[in-house]
């Protein structure tokens, strides 16, 4: 197969109803280069890559590979030209195994009468050995962590013979360690392929990429060498202003305990105890950061607190009332706010409009309905208001929430949960997929809520986020709290050690 020595997109323009997603974009990527594609949420990064992959057709512009114009009418055309993409939302089928998933796209193993799974398996082994990507071919997708699924997507793309990789926010759901591994791997692969890398994390961009392309409102606002610019410069170019993530500097408040979790046992989907004698309490007016490698019980904890998962044993005292195994409705009514991990399937109803999604939990409130009749004007006004306040990029308030860009979907959820005036907020990876400007805004909002006196439990893998915002830091490991630290005692090193399961005393 021929190598891709150069890829060029020229004058790409794409109009969606009400949004100019790509506005006359031109760029090129040479052999063995890694191009970083960065920009705010809704800047048009995913759309541009979808055009490259033949998922969308551009209104104007052309694509050149090795100097020759190509036309991709669908993703298969792009595959056969050697392009492969790992999407922002993984496209794996949960109740099929890794081999079966990869076989779906691996046409060489198909014959009219038989699917040659052995051939697929051989190919997987070949690829994973070549690049040092360990995957278990017989694992079911639902058994895999997000990081492992990501690796499967990568292996899949490589198995299909990709000689040019497009990675759309590959690291947003990875643990720091997984991210580091991926970066090392990509650097190694650079000798054989070219890569387009989309990310909101500038550290990675600096680390990995040679060239940089910044989009804003669908247009290229900057193009250059990564090495010539500091992270601060890049952030400023991206958002148009200096970004400074806020830090919680205030005195810890010694309010009353509002959420008290005692001896909690909760099962995971796979049947083992995901939480095993879990204890944690949070006061009003404080942010407790729950640090830990994902998969140590965070998801089960969040679901149990919100009545979405059965509690086997123990109690969850919320303002004095035990809410374990209460209905989600009851828990919401008692003042719980929850920013869930799964934004596309849980946090929004994709088919509903933006404004409908913003009242998901509040249709019964007097504000939005009277005698069970919805107050359309109030719903519209609420949406208009929040759209401006949270900078949700959408043509209007009636578009389907599912058509928004990843980061903007996250903003819809945040807008709803924060503006509902909850008495407590459980925020799970709140800035995942957000651009820097939006992350800054959300962090300010969380601190503001803290000042108003509500308790916040912040579940995150980003140590910076935890250290910036928390009054206290708790570390979760295998369903138990390892240790709770005051902010002054917490730093990256101690947290890292605790997250790995080593008890603090053992290191001393």
């Amino acid at each position: 197969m021929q190598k891709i020595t150069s890829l060029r997109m020229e004058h790409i323009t794409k109009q969606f109803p009400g949004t100019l997603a790509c506005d006359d974009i031109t760029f090129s990527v040479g052999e063995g280069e890694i191009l970083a594609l960065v920009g705010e949420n809704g800047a048009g990064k995913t759309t541009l890559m979808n055009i490259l992959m033949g998922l969308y057709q551009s209104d104007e512009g052309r694509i050149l590979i090795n100097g020759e114009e190509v036309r991709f009418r669908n993703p298969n055309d792009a595959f056969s030209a050697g392009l492969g993409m790992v999407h922002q939302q993984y496209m794996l089928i949960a109740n099929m195994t890794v081999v079966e998933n990869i076989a779906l796209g691996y046409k060489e193993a198909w014959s009219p009468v038989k699917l040659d799974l052995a051939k697929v398996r051989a190919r997987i082994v070949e690829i994973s050995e070549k690049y040092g990507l360990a995957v278990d071919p017989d694992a079911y997708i639902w058994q895999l962590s997000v990081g492992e699924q990501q690796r499967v997507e990568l292996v899949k793309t490589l198995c299909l013979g990709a000689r040019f990789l497009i990675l759309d926010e590959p690291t947003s759901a990875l643990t720091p360690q997984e991210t580091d591994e991926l970066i090392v791997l990509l650097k190694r692969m650079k000798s054989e392929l070219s890569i387009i890398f989309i990310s909101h994390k500038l550290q990675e961009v600096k680390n990995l990429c040679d060239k940089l392309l910044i989009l804003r409102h669908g247009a290229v606002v900057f193009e250059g060498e990564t090495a010539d610019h500091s992270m601060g410069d890049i952030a400023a170019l991206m958002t148009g202003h200096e970004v400074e993530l806020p830090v919680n500097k205030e005195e810890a408040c010694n309010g009353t305990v509002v959420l008290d979790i005692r001896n909690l046992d909760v099962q995971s989907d796979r049947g083992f105890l995901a939480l095993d004698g879990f204890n944690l309490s949070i006061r009003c007016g404080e942010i407790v950061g729950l640090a830990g490698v994902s998969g140590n019980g965070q998801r089960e904890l969040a679901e149990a607190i919100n009545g979405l998962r059965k509690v086997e044993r123990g109690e969850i005292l919320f303002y004095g009332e035990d809410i374990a195994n209460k209905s989600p409705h009851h828990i919401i009514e008692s003042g719980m706010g929850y920013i869930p991990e799964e934004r596309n399937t849980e946090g929004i109803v994709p088919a509903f409009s933006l404004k409908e999604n913003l009242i998901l939990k509040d249709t019964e409130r007097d504000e939005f309905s009277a005698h069970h009749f919805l107050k359309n004007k109030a719903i519209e006004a609420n949406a208009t208001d929040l759209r401006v306040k949270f900078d949700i990029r959408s043509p209007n308030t009636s578009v389907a929430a599912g058509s928004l860009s990843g980061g903007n979907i996250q903003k819809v959820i945040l807008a709803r949960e924060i503006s509902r005036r909850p008495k407590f907020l459980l925020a799970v990876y709140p800035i995942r997929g957000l651009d820097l400007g939006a992350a800054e805004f959300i962090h300010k909002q969380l601190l503001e809520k803290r000042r108003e006196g509500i308790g916040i439990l912040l579940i995150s893998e980003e140590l910076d986020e935890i250290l910036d915002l928390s009054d206290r830091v708790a570390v979760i490991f295998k369903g138990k709290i390892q240790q709770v630290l005051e902010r002054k005692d917490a730093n990256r090193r101690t947290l890292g050690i605790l997250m790995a399961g080593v008890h603090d005393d053992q290191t001393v």
Partner: protein
Amino acid sequence: MTRQFKLTYKFTIIILAILAAMGIGSIILLAIGADVTKTYLVILLEPLKSTLQISEVLLRAIPLSIIALGISVAYRSGIINIGAEGQMMMGILGTTMVALSLPTLPKIILIPLAILTGALFGGLWGFIAGVLRAKLGVSELLSTVMLNYIAAQFYTFMLRGPFLDPAEKTLGGAGTPQSMRLTKNLWLTRFIPRTRLHTGLFIALALAVLIYLLLWKTDFGYKMRASGASGRAARYGGISVGWYLVVSMVISGAFAGIAGAIEVAGVHRRALEGITAGYGFSGIVVALFGGLSPIGIIPASFFFGLLIVGSDMTQRLVGVPANMINVLQGIIILVIVSTKMILADPYLMERVWRWYQRHCKTKPEVEA
């Protein structure tokens, strides 16, 4: 892409779909040796030629629309009700029971009471399927079909036993399984002289408005639609998805029951076999054809009423068996499903848009 183009595109697809359905129908008509054009002309135009015929079309549109409205509520809440046939039978039994046992009640009380009882009986039948699904996870496709069988047997039993017309039992009677003629106080007014068209028409229209308001203007409707569109997100939002599944099945069943009640009170005036006449199944097609919204269901039910009356006439006028309507319905279901997939394919729309633009851009040059 302009709005106008999108509308035209969708409209064209629908027209093409109708033509495709007719095309496939023609092949079958040819196969049975019928005159294709004449058959279609008879089906589509003959029923519109006189007031009497139009009234007959409307008469069929009444139960079709009511059932379809109920099915659309269930469908939007994420549960597929194919048990309307059985629920309708239960409704008929409820109405008949009230009319037989309380024949002396004045019209103004008896009619609402009888219709409500019909709704209650149909609703109960829907409730069973709803609860089975919500609590035990039993597929509604299975349970509603089974409940149809149970209802059908129960219906026959009641008509042959407890409800059987005393006149049929005597020596002169033929033993036809049917109830006696129900009290006049139950009869719905026929408001156009020399036709059978009854005031059930207005009930159907009122119900359509009601469903529109319920689904799109109330918090109930919001929650039902949310449960249907994304159960997981609805649960997260504090909506008890299971409860709304059950409620929507009760509404769906109740509507089928009302359709049965109105058929008895407006058309047949007694319970007899064959009243349901497949309305419960055609209602599904009407609901889908009407895009699961009252605004679409009203014209769709008229169209299907037309097909039913029209194909009755083909039997007389062109000698094509009336069963052809079932064949046509089958074809229409297939065409609807494919059309929906085509309409939901943004890539195809893009391609057409591109083609259209190229076409329009070159056209002025040709003219110049």
